[in-house]
C-alpha cells in the first residue's frame, strides 16, 4: 500500500491504523497527525485506518521559549 508521509512516497507492508503507524515509526515527542488535510484526534488513532493514496503530515510541536 502506498501513502505519502510529509510529501514523500512511503510503502506500507500492510493496512494499518494511524496508531499502528505511529508505533511502527516509533514517533515520540509532541506531534499531531494530519490525514488528507484533516487532523486526527489522538483518541481516534486506534480506529482511523490508513488507505491507499492517503497523505499523512506529521506535525511536530516545539516547546522552547
Amino acid at each position, binding site marked *: 500500500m502506498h501513502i505519502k508521509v510529509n510529501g514523500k512516497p512511503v510503502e506500507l507492508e500492510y493496512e494499518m491504523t494511524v496508531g499502528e503507524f505511529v508505533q511502527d515509526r516509533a514517533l515520540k515527542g509532541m506531534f*499531531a497527525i494530519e490525514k488528507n488535510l484533516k*487532523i486526527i484526534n489522538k483518541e481516534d488513532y486506534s480506529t482511523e485506518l490508513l488507505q491507499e493514496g492517503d497523505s499523512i503530515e506529521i506535525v511536530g510541536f516545539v516547546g*522552547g*521559549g
Partner: protein
Amino acid sequence: MNRYLKNNLSKEIQEILQSAKVLICGCGGLGSGVISNLAGLGIGTLGLCDFDKVEITNLNRQFIHKYENIGKFKTESAREWIKSYNPDIEVKTYAEPAKEWMFSEYDIAVDCTDNFKIKFQLNDFALNTDKPLVHAGVQGEQGQVMSIIPHQTSCLRCVLGDNSEETENSGVISPVVNTIAAIESLEVFKLIANKEAALLNKVLFINFKNYSFKTIDFSKNPHCIC
C-alpha cells in the same frame, strides 16, 4: 499620543490598547520580544512573570536584558527596560511561577515559557479564568503559534492531548525566536483591538530552514476537557 502616531491606528483603538492589561508568562527569549513589541504598541499595563535571573547565555537573543543586569531577576531587568523605553506603561512583576490568580487580573495572557509542562498549566489557567491565551513554542529552526479563546476555540489539549512530553530545548538564534515573538505580539494586538485573532482554531508552523509557513486547522476536540 504623538508617540503612537506611526502605529497608524484610530484614536479609539489606541485608547483600547492603552487600557489593556497583558500578562507575559516568561521574560526570556519569546518574552523579551513580546515585551518590546507590546511596549511599542502602547499596551497600558504589562504583567511580567518569571522566576529566572539574567544569565550571560541569555544575551544572544534577549535584547531587553543588559550585561549589567546579569544576576538580577528577569522581571526586574525587564521592568527597567520598559520604564526607560516608555515610562507611561504600568508594570507589575512576579518573580515566581505563574499562578491562576494572576490570569484573573489581566485581559490576556501570553505563553512565553520554555517547556510543555508549564505551557499546559497556562492553558488550564486560561480555561479556568476564561482569559484568552496566545501560545508559542520555538526551538532550533522551528516555531509555532496559536491563539486560544477558552471554551470557544480549540485549546492546547485539543491539539496535543494530555501528554506533556518534553521536547529538545537546546537553544535558538535571535532572528528565529524574535520572529515567533513578533507573531505572538501581533495575535495579542488582534485579540485586543478586534476581539479576534488570525490563529484561532489553527496553528501556524514556521520552518525557518526553508521559510515554510504552514497553517493547519485544529477544530475543538470533542474529547477535550475544554
